[in-house]
């Protein structure tokens, strides 16, 4: 199976480069610099050293025994990306892109962020490399993720609230693209997911592939064989693409991507682009998209800010069509229950994003049986979500 896009960034009919002409030369320059960097052993050496000494990799693969018992079936292993510096997988990619920015002589980083994890990770990389940093964040997300806003500011980043549209990740990304057009000479746009125009989807997957590479070695060491299933949440889809990347050719390893069903797919208030969207073009690539009959992008909904996006990375669209990955969805309520489960049973507070993957494991563990193993990508920690969870629970007690 072919996992790299064609020369213009297409994964089957998806992907590509749908941007204003002003940005095309910058994307072509980025692609050339990226291709050179990944062929350069010195780049890898430096990237890996930072991942080891600064991010704290490899992240552990942990057998969650009490959770396994409670869910009553397959043995559940957690890939602990929550233990990375800054608390999520996002840092793997921002270190990679910041190193690339430095090679290209750019002095300013810019990012969009939903939950704030990618914004924090970009601000962190900017601090580490002595670069300026501007983060675009929806005003609604700023409200939901206040601690992360403060972290970014402490790290020296300027956080620009975005009020247009639903004031969430989609609008933050639109605003970031507008800002990039104006400062395209000295600014490197650090996209946080496997979305956006080519080469971002394949570049971000490459920088996140360390999750999959480590998981493969760790599970072989611990169990002597490959896992039966890998489950990861999918907003744009970077943590999923990262962990899936090492198992794509192992057809016996079932790969499961979990989208956010929000209040439920039938209510129309969800973020399941693959489950309920149609092919469209947004933010630089063609993929599945939540949109109306006129091609207007619809608002996504999820309790998790990081999954609250109406699109999905183009390679996920291709994996869905070719059935290499199964996609399903988990509601806000199911995710919250899984959050409680892991917190109480294992003493680990998962991010609400990752809680969607845990909730899917809950549904599948008993079906696979006790001999099977499932790896769940615990993409981030939940500290950032506490205010949000408290207010959600209070609201729902009233109803």
């Amino acid at each position, binding site marked *: 199976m072919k996992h790299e896009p064609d020369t213009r960034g297409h994964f089957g009919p998806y992907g590509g480069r749908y941007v204003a*002409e002003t940005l*095309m*030369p910058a994307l072509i320059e980025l692609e050339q610099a990226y291709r050179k960097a990944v062929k350069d052993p010195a780049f890898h050496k430096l990237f890996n050293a930072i991942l080891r000494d600064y991010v704290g990799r490899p992240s552990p693969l942990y057998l969650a025994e009490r959770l396994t018992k409670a869910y009553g079936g397959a043995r559940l292993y957690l890939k602990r990306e929550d233990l990375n510096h800054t608390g999520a997988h996002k840092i793997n990619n921002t270190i990679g892109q910041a190193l690339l920015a430095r090679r290209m002589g750019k002095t300013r980083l810019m990012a969009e962020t939903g939950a704030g994890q990618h914004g924090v990770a970009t601000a962190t990389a900017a601090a580490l490399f002595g670069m300026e940093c501007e983060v675009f964040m929806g005003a609604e997300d700023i409200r939901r993720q206040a601690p992360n806003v403060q972290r970014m500011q402490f790290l020296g980043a300027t956080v620009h609230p975005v009020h247009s549209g639903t004031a969430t990740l989609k609008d933050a990304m639109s605003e970031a693209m507008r800002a990039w*057009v104006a400062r395209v000479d000295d600014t490197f746009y650090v996209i946080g997911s496997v979305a956006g125009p080519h080469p971002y989807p394949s570049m971000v997957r490459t920088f996140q592939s360390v999750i999959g590479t480590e998981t493969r070695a760790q599970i072989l060491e611990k169990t002597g064989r490959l896992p039966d299933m890998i489950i990861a949440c999918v907003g744009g889809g970077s943590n999923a693409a990262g962990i899936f990347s090492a198992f794509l050719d192992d057809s016996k390893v079932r790969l499961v991507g979990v989208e956010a069903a929000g209040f439920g797919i039938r209510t129309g208030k969800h973020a399941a682009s693959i489950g309920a969207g*149609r092919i469209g073009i947004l933010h630089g690539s063609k993929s599945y998209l939540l949109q109306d009959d*006129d*091609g*207007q992008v619809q608002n996504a909904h999820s309790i998790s800010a990081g999954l609250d996006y109406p699109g999905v990375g183009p390679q996920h669209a291709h994996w869905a069509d070719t059935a290499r990955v199964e996609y399903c969805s988990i509601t806000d309520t199911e995710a919250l229950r899984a959050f409680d489960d892991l917190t109480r049973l294992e003493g680990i507070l998962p991010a609400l994003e990752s809680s969607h993957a845990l909730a899917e494991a809950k549904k599948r563990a008993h079906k696979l049986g006790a001999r099977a193993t499932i790896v769940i990508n615990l993409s981030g920690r939940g500290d950032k979500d506490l205010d949000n969870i408290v207010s959600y629970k209070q609201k729902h007690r009233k109803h």
Partner: protein
Amino acid sequence: MNRITQTFQTLRMQGRKALIGYLTAGDPDLKTSERNIRLALANGLDILELGVPFSDPTADGPVIQAAGQRALASGANLKQILAMAARLRRSFKTPMILFSYANPLFRYGYNALCRDAARAGIDGLLVVDLPYEESAELRTPMKRHGLLFIQLIAPTTSPERARRLLAEADGFVYYILVKGVTGLRKRRVLPPQADPPMAENTKKNIDRLRTCTDLPIAAGFGIGDGAQAREAARHADAVVVGSALVEAARKGRLAELVRELAAAVHGV
């Protein structure tokens, strides 16, 4: 011959420059919007850019973003906009270009769109986020229905790239004057003689573009009044004004601004 090509030929023979005006279709509703467009056409526009509203206009500044949101809130869609174009075509011979983001066109279906647009009297398409590399899918049905593909060239586009892109372009070239989104800047993009470096840069870039193509060159982004339009028209064959017209329409000063711009552009 396509009306766009015809218009530029006529103007060239007369030694005149063209005024191209953008208005968002359906802002604030279809009826008002049609009235405004008729007003603009009657007061001196040489070419109309009919804007299709989109939920996520990543290349537009605040004025056109807001116009698009008003249009969408009123329920405007592509089908109604094409019907409006057909009504306008019955009254005006002015070339009309549909100005859009890719997704509304893609969802409509490229084949159906080209058929219906040509039927409605549209002469060309300008798709902001559909670069040359992704345009083949749309160009084929466009050609079949006699629609011109208007190519955008940015200040970041190298001469080599411009030459390659323009080898297949039609009608005219839309040269984007500034790195940035649509709309007026706090700093004037084309200051009068007081600040020669900016104006010189524009001249230099347009002169450079002339070595890449024989097509007429239209300059746009950031032009809002007669003085700026006159300055741009000294170097380009046409001047595009968008956000300023959208604002003027809201304030009931559209006819006045179109006359001012037309006088400035046609006087060069």
